[in-house]
């Protein structure tokens, strides 16, 4: 077990290094640089000063080495485009915002999704089943941007139940200011509903045809008991393993939801940074997200062992 974790950890460092390298050179391959728009209408001398100031006058490989060296120390540097913004500040200020939004969306979406999934599986082939399928497909077919704007127009504009834009800050950063969070949470929860309803339904149908369910039926167990004791428990395995991935992804924020509701999260910032080729921020955020992903993947592997006794610890010989 200990050796396995050490090995995974070393692999993780290697992967992160590869990711940072890939990101760096991908950004380099894009024409232009973070300063080009600002420098475009400057006299030549000012341009040179500006490039020197940001260290962009050095050759690519030299900058790559400098970046990697600083990254190893945990220093991603300062934004090229937005003066004074750093990756540290981003984690401190923006990550909690996206995380809260994502967690709210996920809690709501997964709960509703699982209930709908159970409903669809139990009532398989009935109107209820198809309604669930149609409902989830319909809701994920509508782009977030449009859905968000419609919710905003109706519930904030016409009915005035909720504020149009904004997000709780300060003391209410994690808890409180709920009225601000309702519409963004609703907008984003439907992708979870669709995913989890489908996932649970599929896996329940897989389990229904297993021999042990047949056995339970022939023993004369009640339907409710079979569903609770045999079907649900076993069909939750894929759900349990999908969940950590959702947790990892949920805090990365959503560009459109954040931009519609003026939420100061990382999703919007990330897309802007990519478009601006703001290397330090993109690199920092990419590595952060990748780290999250890898850690979660690792946890998932461990979880598999816990929830499914048929799987043995990787690395342990049979």
């Amino acid at each position, binding site marked *: 077990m200990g050796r396995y974790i050490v090995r995974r950890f070393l*692999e993780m460092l*290697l*992967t992160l290094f*590869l*990711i940072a390298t*890939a*990101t760096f050179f*991908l*950004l380099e*391959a*894009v*024409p232009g640089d973070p300063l080009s728009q600002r420098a475009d209408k400057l006299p030549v001398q000012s341009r040179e000063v500006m490039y020197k100031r940001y260290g962009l006058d050095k050759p690519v490989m030299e900058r790559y080495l400098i970046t990697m060296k600083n990254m190893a120390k945990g220093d991603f540097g300062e934004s090229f485009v937005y003066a004074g913004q750093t990756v540290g500040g981003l984690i401190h200020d923006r990550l909690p915002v996206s995380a809260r939004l994502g967690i709210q969306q996920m809690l709501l979406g997964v709960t509703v999704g699982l209930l709908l999934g159970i409903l669809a599986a139990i009532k398989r082939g009935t109107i209820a089943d*198809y309604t669930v*399928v*149609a409902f989830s*497909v*319909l809701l*994920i*077919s*509508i*782009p977030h*941007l*449009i859905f968000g*704007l419609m919710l905003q*127009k109706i519930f904030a504009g016409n009915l005035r139940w909720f504020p149009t834009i904004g997000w709780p800050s300060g003391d209410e950063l994690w808890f409180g200011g709920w009225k601000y969070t309702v519409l963004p949470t609703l907008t984003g929860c439907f992708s979870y509903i669709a995913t989890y309803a489908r996932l649970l339904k*599929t896996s329940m*149908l*897989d389990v229904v*045809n297993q021999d042990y369910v047949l056995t339970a039926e022939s023993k004369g167990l009640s339907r409710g008991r079979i569903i609770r004791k045999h079907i649900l428990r076993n069909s939750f395995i894929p759900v349990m393993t999908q969940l950590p991935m959702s947790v990892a992804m949920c805090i*990365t924020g959503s*560009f*459109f939801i954040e931009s519609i509701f003026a939420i100061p999260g990382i999703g919007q910032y*990330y*897309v802007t940074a*990519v*478009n601006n080729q703001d290397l330090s921020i*993109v690199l920092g955020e*990419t590595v952060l*997200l*990748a780290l999250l*992903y*890898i850690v979660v993947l690792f946890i998932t592997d461990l979880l598999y062992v816990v929830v499914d006794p048929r799987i043995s610890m990787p690395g342990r010989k049979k």
Partner: protein
Amino acid sequence: MLTPDKFKVIGYTEEEANSICRPTISYWQDAWRRLRKNPVAMASLIILGLLVIMVIIGPNLRGYDYIAMNIPDKNQGASAKYWFGTDNMGRDLFSRIWVGARASLAIALVATMLKLVVGTLYGAAMAHFGGWVDDLLMRIIEVINSLPSLLVTILIMMVLGNNLFAMLVALSITAWCNTARQVRGMIKQLKESEYVYAAEVLGASPMRIILKHYVPNMISILILDASVAIPQFIFTEAGLSFLGIGLKTPAISLGVLISLGQQTMDFYPSQLFYPCVVLCVIVMAFNLLGDGLRNALDPRLRQ
């Protein structure tokens, strides 16, 4: 009352005992039989068929030019003249939607093909070579998967320019990993499965094993993969249009139409509504057909 004299021996022959009364049906015949019994899946199949026809003939049905502007007729609502109304340049929305759907479907299909081909080859290579090759290839997949796909997509579109080729590369570059993993898992599992072993022992040629065992198993995985991938690609393409990195004017896709419609939705909701409906129908048909296929192709779900 049953008495013994009510029974008599009719005798039997060797052939009769060994004959199989049920007609032999292959895996594919069986799958098709079961799919046909699923009304929802069949309805989806028919709808998809109709959509394909519309995508081919739809743009020319009304005889309007879907590119050339006609400013005097701009932003009209639905009418007998323009079934779905017109856009901000006075062009027939009905024709434009089918042109857009054509592009969306074409992009999704080609991207899916790319994904399947690359994924299968990559996965087969991983499973076949194993050892350090497998480890290395797996590491590459891990790196690609850990990179946010949006980042990769945007950057590739930036490097390769805003064109169809760039779009296809950008869409498929992160998508094939999943296929590769599944194929790898499937082949590894088959390699060690008893029936493949049995076939080998019985002296089946490698060709026969590949054709009879690997291919059917793989194809059902790939078909399912495709039925999930196609609507996903249609979505992703639409999402890219919202970020302003989709197809470029005057080319249109459903995504482009929806993102344009969104900007004027407070004034001309029909410009958003119709493309959205077509998108929903396409996506829903693929999803429901996918469900049906999954049921039909998975022998464990046989009833």
